[in-house]
């Protein structure tokens, strides 16, 4: 047979040429650097955000004492006589909405994700997922009016003591809004658990639920947590639904049936409103934005911690 190196097949000839011509093209070296620069963009974005927020926040704290900001229990920046800037009511408003939305969306979102990935037929899944993804893009103003003109009246029919603007209705609708995010990303995480693992569990006589809850779910946990964090972050950051359906009354009361204001809706109120440029009120949005930023930061640190603890490799 062809045993000497002289008789090379066409493939070998071509390869030999390649070895001699230097194997690596320069792109192998450049690409990591280019990719690193791309990764740097998101770091620069954070840096940009922090810088944008911090200068104006400092200006704001020139006018308002930082102690008042964190300890005062009222937020009445527009009061002509004695404005009070205590962030607590806005934080509380955000918390109310976020908690209600999470309580509503996380169980339902995960239930739907589990249904789609573990129970539903491939066809149902194929139909449902794109629909949910479309709904994730519905502008939030639409959800806002949905809350105000549909959910609120329905709820008021059941609980007459509920006010026109309250925490529950927008909370639920924010929940509805983030369900597609949670479902879609969780379902991805669940269905990327290898089929062989699923079979291993089923072959031991476990039901679908046991397979899903004891094997698949834990295996997909880090992806699921990521979807929840993203969903909850969107709830925290949601603006329009809250502006429309929750009113804009900063309130330090724990009552869920009355009007409230969140950090985001305050920012939008001021950016779209008529407050004077350069006034304390104007700068206050940066301080609120900064608080909001810290808020999401803390939540993410928590989520990272949780996800690190529960990550399972497969």
């Amino acid at each position, binding site marked *: 047979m062809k045993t000497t190196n002289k008789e090379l097949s066409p493939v070998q000839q071509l390869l030999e040429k390649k070895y001699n011509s230097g194997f690596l093209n320069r792109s192998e070296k450049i690409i990591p650097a280019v990719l690193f620069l791309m990764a740097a963009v998101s770091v620069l974005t954070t840096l940009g955000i922090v810088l944008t927020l911090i200068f104006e926040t400092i200006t704001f704290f020139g006018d308002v004492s930082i102690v008042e900001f964190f300890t005062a229990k009222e937020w009445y920046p527009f009061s002509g006589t004695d404005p009070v800037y205590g962030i607590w009511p806005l934080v509380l408003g955000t918390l109310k909405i976020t908690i209600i939305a999470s309580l509503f969306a996380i169980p339902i979102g995960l239930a739907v994700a589990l249904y789609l990935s573990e129970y539903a*037929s*491939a066809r149902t899944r194929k139909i449902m997922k794109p629909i949910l993804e479309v709904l994730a893009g519905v502008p939030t103003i639409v959800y806002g009016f949905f809350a105000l003109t549909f959910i609120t009246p329905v709820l008021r029919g059941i609980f007459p003591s509920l006010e026109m603007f309250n925490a529950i209705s927008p909370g639920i609708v924010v929940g509805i809004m983030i369900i597609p995010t949670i479902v879609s990303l969780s379902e991805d995480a669940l269905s990327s*658990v*290898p*089929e*062989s*693992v*699923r*079979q*291993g*569990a*089923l*072959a*031991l*006589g*476990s*039901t679908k639920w*046991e397979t899903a809850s*004891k*094997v698949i779910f*834990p*295996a997909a946990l880090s992806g699921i947590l990521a979807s929840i964090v993203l969903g909850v972050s969107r709830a925290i950051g949601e603006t329009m639904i809250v502006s429309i359906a929750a009113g804009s009354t900063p309130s330090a009361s724990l009552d869920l049936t009355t009007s409230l204001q969140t950090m985001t809706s305050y920012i939008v109120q001021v950016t779209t409103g008529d407050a004077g440029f350069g006034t304390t009120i104007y700068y206050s949005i940066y301080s609120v934005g900064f608080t909001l930023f810290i808020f999401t930061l803390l939540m993410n640190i928590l989520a990272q911690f949780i996800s690190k603890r529960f990550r*399972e*490799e*497969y």
Partner: protein
Amino acid sequence: MALTAVNTTKNNQSVQNEELFVYNTKNLNLWYGEHHALKNINLGIKEREVTAIIGPSGCGKSTYIKTLNRMIDLVPGVKTTGQIEYRDRDIFSKDFLVEELRTRVGMVFQKPNPFPKSIYENIAFGLKIHGIKNKQIITETVEKSLRGAALWDEVKDRIHEPAYGLSGGQQQRLCIARCLALEPDVILMDEPTSALDPVSTLKVEELIQELKEKYSIIIVTHNMQQAARISDKTAFFLNGEVVEFNSTDTIFNNPADSRTDDYISGRFG
């Protein structure tokens, strides 16, 4: 030796001389969509025997064994006709829950598929889902199963570490151990030793010999020697059909069908 194994069948069954089938397959046909993968299979599998299924790649061995515990249900677009009885119960009937079937019939797969959990949890899983919560029983069973799969000595110091840190062979033995933990009636094995080294293989083969005292075992294997060594009966599959099913002795030494002979002696192609 194969025949003595049959004779060791315990006499807790009333009629001893009647053929006692754990599995009885009657006119089974199976299609993957258009592809006719199993053709008119008839096989009676006896209790407390080791039945080997041999045949060339793609002949339908895995398909058949997956049908026995209805794992095949997971493949969309599969159609079956005919009947399979497990201890006289139609496995396709509504009354017979797949979960029960699969608890009674353990399965070891071709590719190792441990759960992304610790070694311990992998084995405890089956017990836990079946409602066994007693920690002591679980821990004992974990050890017993790991010993049974000839894995205990290698992993005893790290049973709480992730199973994915094990080598391929170790993972497969873990899967066997996992299945043993439920002490099933029948164990289906799809080339369980193809990822094991001879030493472990030997251990598992010994184990199989031991297990058949209590369990019925159906094993798919490519290893002719293995089939000859451990099985009482052998079925030779070809193109989705059972060419020959007989005692292992007969199949290997005196096959009725020339194709069997060809395959066994390696002339087949």
